C-alpha cells in the first residue's frame, strides 16, 4: 500500500482512541446484508514497475499522432503544444489543488483563471467569460440554455447541419426534457444559406448557432447571418475555433463591432491541450455583459482584501448549484480549470503574432494540400465555400476506407470519413492541416494518392525514416 501511512502500531493506537476493537467494527455501520462477502473481482494489484510496463504495452498497441502524421480534425486538432505549457501544468500546486474556495491559499489558480477570462474576452471581442466548461459541445448546449432562458417565451433553437454533429446531438440531449425545440437547417452547399436562415427564424426563435469555421472547415457568412438572426430578435451563438481568430474576425465583431454574436463558445483543446482521445478538453464560453448572471459555471472576479491589496475570488456564486441548488443557472460544479490554465499559458506564449502566424500556416498549408490532392484526380472539392484549416474532399473512387488504410500503411492518419454523420457524404473525407504538418508530409500524402504502385509509396515512406 504505497499511498497509506498507518502501521499496525498506528492502527492499534487509533482504534483504542476511537474505542473500537477493529476497523471491521467501524464498518459495521453498513448493515450486514449489504456487505460484500467476497473480494471484488478485479485483477490483482500491480506494483509501479508492473503498471508502467503494462501501460506502455497498451500504448504500443495504438498508433498515434506522435507516430503518424495526423490529418484528423473535426473539432480536435493536432496543434503544437509548447513545452512550457506542460512544465507549468505539471506543477503539483496547480494540478493537485481544488476549486479555489479559500481565496487566501488559491490566488495562483484564481489569478490564472482571471487571466484566462481576460484572454477569452480579448479573443472573442465579447464582454465576459466564465472560467471554463467541460468541452465545446456542452458549452454550446449551455449557451443554448442561456439563450432560451434569456429570450423568455421563445423556444426554437436553429442549428445548421454545418455545426459539428456531436454538438448538435449534445444540444438535443440537453433539450430532451426541456421546453425547447431544435430547428434544423440543412446546408447542402456546406454553409448556411442566408435565405434558408431567413426562412427559419421567426418570433419563436430563441437563438441561432453559427459555427465559424464550420464542421466542414468552411467559412460561414457570419456577418450576414448575424444580421438576419438579430433582425428576427434571436440571439446569435458563435461556435468558433480559437486558432482561427489569428485570421478571422472575432465573433463579437460579426456584422460590425459590438453588433456581433451574443454568446461565443468554443472547444479550447487547440490551445495547448493534448488530444488524449477526446478529453478532458476545454469548453469556452463568453457573452455580452447583459447575460452575465445567466452564465453557467465558475467566474472569477477581482476585488481587494482587508489590507487593500488587489486579489481574486470566485464571484457571482448565487448563480451556482452549491448556493442556489434547483434555481442555479446550471448544475456544473467541476470545470476544466487545468485545461483553462493550459490555454492561458499557451496564449501567453503565442501572443498576437504567434496566433496570427499559427492561423496563417494552417490556412496556407491546408489549401496547398487540398490542391495537391485534387490535382491527383482522385479527389475533388465538395463545397465551393472558402475554408480555413480543414476541408471536405470527395473520393471519385468512392473508397474512403481504402484511402485511410493506405494512409495508415504509410504513416498517416489521413482523414475522417463523413459517412457516419452524413450518409450523403459517404464517399467524402474531412482533412485537417495544422501548423505542424510539413510540406514534405503534405507532398507524401498527395504522392500515395497519385501513385497506385505500391513500390513508390514504400520508397516515399523510407525517405521519412532517413530524414
Amino acid at each position, binding site marked *: 500500500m504505497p499511498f497509506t501511512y498507518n502501521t499496525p502500531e498506528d492502527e492499534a493506537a487509533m482504534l483504542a482512541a476511537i474505542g473500537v476493537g477493529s476497523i471491521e467494527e467501524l464498518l459495521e455501520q453498513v448493515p450486514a446484508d449489504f456487505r460484500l462477502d467476497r473480494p471484488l473481482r478485479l485483477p490483482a494489484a*500491480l506494483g509501479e514497475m508492473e503498471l508502467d510496463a503494462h501501460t506502455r504495452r497498451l500504448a504500443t498497441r495504438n498508433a*498515434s499522432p506522435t507516430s503518424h502524421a495526423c490529418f484528423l480534425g473535426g473539432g480536435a486538432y493536432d496543434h503544437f503544444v509548447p513545452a512550457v505549457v506542460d512544465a507549468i501544468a505539471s506543477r503539483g500546486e496547480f494540478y493537485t489543488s481544488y476549486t479555489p474556495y*479559500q481565496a487566501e491559499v488559491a*490566488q*495562483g489558480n484564481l489569478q490564472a483563471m482571471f487571466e484566462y477570462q481576460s484572454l477569452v474576452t*480579448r479573443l472573442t471581442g465579447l464582454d465576459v467569460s466564465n472560467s471554463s466548461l467541460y468541452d465545446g459541445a456542452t458549452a454550446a448546449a449551455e449557451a443554448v440554455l442561456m439563450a432560451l432562458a434569456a429570450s423568455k417565451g421563445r423556444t426554437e433553437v436553429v442549428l445548421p447541419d454545418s455545426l459539428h454533429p456531436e454538438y448538435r446531438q449534445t444540444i438535443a*440531449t440537453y433539450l430532451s426534457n426541456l421546453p425547447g425545440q431544435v430547428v434544423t437547417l440543412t446546408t447542402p452547399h456546406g454553409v448556411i444559406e442566408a435565405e434558408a436562415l431567413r426562412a427559419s427564424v421567426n418570433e419563436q426563435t430563441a437563438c441561432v448557432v453559427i459555427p465559424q469555421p464550420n464542421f466542414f472547415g468552411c467559412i460561414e457568412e457570419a456577418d450576414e447571418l448575424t444580421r438576419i438572426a438579430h433582425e428576427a430578435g434571436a440571439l446569435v451563438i458563435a461556435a468558433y475555433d480559437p486558432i482561427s481568430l489569428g485570421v478571422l474576425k472575432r465573433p463579437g465583431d460579426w456584422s460590425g463591432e459590438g453588433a456581433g454574436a451574443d454568446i461565443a463558445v468554443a472547444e479550447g483543446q487547440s490551445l495547448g491541450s493534448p488530444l488524449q*482521445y477526446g478529453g478532458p478538453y476545454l469548453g469556452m464560453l463568453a457573452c455580452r455583459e447583459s447575460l452575465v448572471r445567466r452564465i453557467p459555471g465558475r467566474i472569477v472576479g477581482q476585488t481587494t482584501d482587508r489590507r487593500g491589496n488587489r486579489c481574486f475570488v470566485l464571484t457571482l456564486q448565487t448563480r451556482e448549484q452549491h448556493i442556489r441548488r434547483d434555481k442555479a443557472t446550471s448544475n456544473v460544479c467541476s470545470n476544466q480549470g487545468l485545461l483553462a490554465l493550459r490555454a492561458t499559458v499557451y496564449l501567453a506564449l503565442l501572443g498576437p503574432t504567434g*496566433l496570427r502566424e499559427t492561423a496563417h500556416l494552417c490556412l496556407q498549408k491546408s489549401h496547398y494540400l487540398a490542391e495537391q490532392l485534387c490535382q491527383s484526380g482522385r479527389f475533388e472539392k465538395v463545397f465551393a465555400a472558402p475554408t480555413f484549416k480543414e476541408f471536405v474532399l470527395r473520393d471519385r473512387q468512392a473508397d474512403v476506407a481504402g484511402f485511410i488504410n493506405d494512409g495508415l500503411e504509410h504513416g498517416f492518419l489521413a482523414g475522417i470519413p463523413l459517412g457516419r454523420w452524413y450518409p450523403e457524404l459517404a464517399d467524402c473525407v474531412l482533412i485537417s492541416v495544422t501548423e505542424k504538418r510539413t510540406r514534405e508530409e503534405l507532398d507524401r500524402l498527395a504522392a500515395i494518392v497519385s501513385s497506385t504502385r505500391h513500390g513508390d509509396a514504400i520508397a516515399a515512406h523510407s525517405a521519412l525514416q532517413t530524414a
Partner: protein
Amino acid sequence: HDTQLLFDLSKPGRRALRLPTCDVPVQPIETLLPAGAIAEQAPALPELAEPQVVRHFTNLSTQNMSVDSHFYPLGSCTMKHNPKRNERAAGLAGLGDLHPYQPESTIQGMLALLYDLQEFLSEISGLPACSLQPAAGAHGELTALWVAAAYFRDRGEQRTKVLVPDSAHGTNPASAIMAGFETVTVKTLKSGAVDMEDFRAKLDDHIAVFMITNPNTVGIFEPAMRQIADEVHARGGLIYLDGANMNAILGVTRPGDFGADMQHYNPHKTFSGPHGGGGPGAGPICVTEKLASYLPAPIVVKRNDDNQAPVYSLDYERPKSIGRVRSFFGNTGVLVRAYCYIRTHGPDGLRRVSEQAVLNANYLLSRVKHFLPVPQGDRCMHEFVASAKQLKTERGVSAMDIAKRLLDFGVHAPTVYFPQTVPEALMCEPTETESKETLDAFAEMLFRITEEDPELLHTAPHTTAISRPDEVAAARQPTLCHCG
C-alpha cells in the same frame, strides 16, 4: 504579494514562440478568404518573453495550497494523494496523444483499457452497465437522470418529480431541473439520516428518482437505506446514488447491492485523479441491466473470435440511447488515471483504501469531538461534520473564522457551511493518504484555535499574501476581466 497580471508584463514586440516560415507557396490571404471574414488585426493578447511566462506561472503556483504540498481535509472532495505514476501513464505517447476519430484498428490498446475500466466500475458498483462518457460528477448525475427519463418515457410513465434530501450536494437538485424534473426536498434528521416520515409523506407515484448520497454528506451510512430503496422501488421509482462518497465503501458494500439503480463515480475523488484547481474530473455512470439500453453511445465492446486476440470496438448502434451528452469519447485522460489507480490497488488494496479512510476519519472525529461537537454522533464513515455553533454563540467564533485561521497553520480549511443542515458546519475528510501524525497535529491546531482570542480569528489568516477578500464588492460590481 505581487499581483502583476500577464497584461502588466506585456511590451509590444516581445515574442515567446517563433513559428517556422511557411514551406508551401504562400497565397495572398484575400484570395483564400472572403474579405468580410478577415480580422483587421490580431486579438490584443499580451506580448511576452518565455522566461517571463515561466516565472509568472511558477510564482503563481506557489500561491496555492495543494495536496502535493499541504494537508487538505476539504470534506466531500476526497483530496487524497495523486500518484505520479498515473500522470506518467496518462502522458505516454500512444495513450495521451490519441485523436478521438482514429480508426478503431489503431487504438486497440486504448479501447482495451477503457473496456476493462467499464468492467471494473460495474464490478465495484454492482451495477452491470457502464458509460464512461460524462465529463464530471454533476454531468454523470444529469446523464443518469436523462437515462431515467428515457426509461420512464419508454414505459409510457409520466413521472415528474425527483426526491432530494436537504443535505444533498447542490448538484443533485440542479441536475434534476436540467433533466426536466421538479425537485422535492426530503428532510434529514440531526443525525444526518433521512427523515423517514417526511420521505414517506413525499413519496408518490410521480416520483421518478430518489437521489441519495450514501454514505451521506455528514459521512454516515444511511440507516434506512433498505426501507428507502424498497419503498421507492415499490412505487416504481428508481434510486440514484450520488457517488461522491464512494471512497468510504470500496469493496465493503456496493450500491447495486444496497438498492441503487444508477450511480456516478468521481474518479478525481475516489480514484485519485488530480483535481486540477477545479477540474477536469470525469463522471462515469453505472446502471442496472434494465437501464443499460438508454446509456449514451458509444460504449466499448469486446469481441472474442475463436483463438484470436480479442477485438475491441465502439458500439454506436444503441437505438434507445439518450444520445450524446458531450463530444468525443469522454474525459479519457482522467479515466486512464482511474484505471491505473484500480490496477495499482487490486481488490484487497481498494478495500484497504476504504478501511483506512474510515479509520482516519473516525480517529480524527474522536480527537475533535471534545471541543468541536459533532452532532451526528461518535461514528462516521470517511468524513464527519463538526459544528462551531456553540463557539459562535459563546465566543463569537464562526466556522469561517476557524477555517481561515487554519490557513495560518499551513493546513487547508475543511469545507464550511455545508451541509446546510448543520449550523456552522466544518466538514472534515482526512482521506486514507494522511498519517496519524498529521491528524494529531491537525486536531491540536483546531483545539488551539478554539482557545485563541476571537479578534485574532476574525482577522485571520495573518500569514498569507492576502486575507479576507471583499467578496461582496466583487459580486456587486463585478470586475471579471482585465480589459485592454
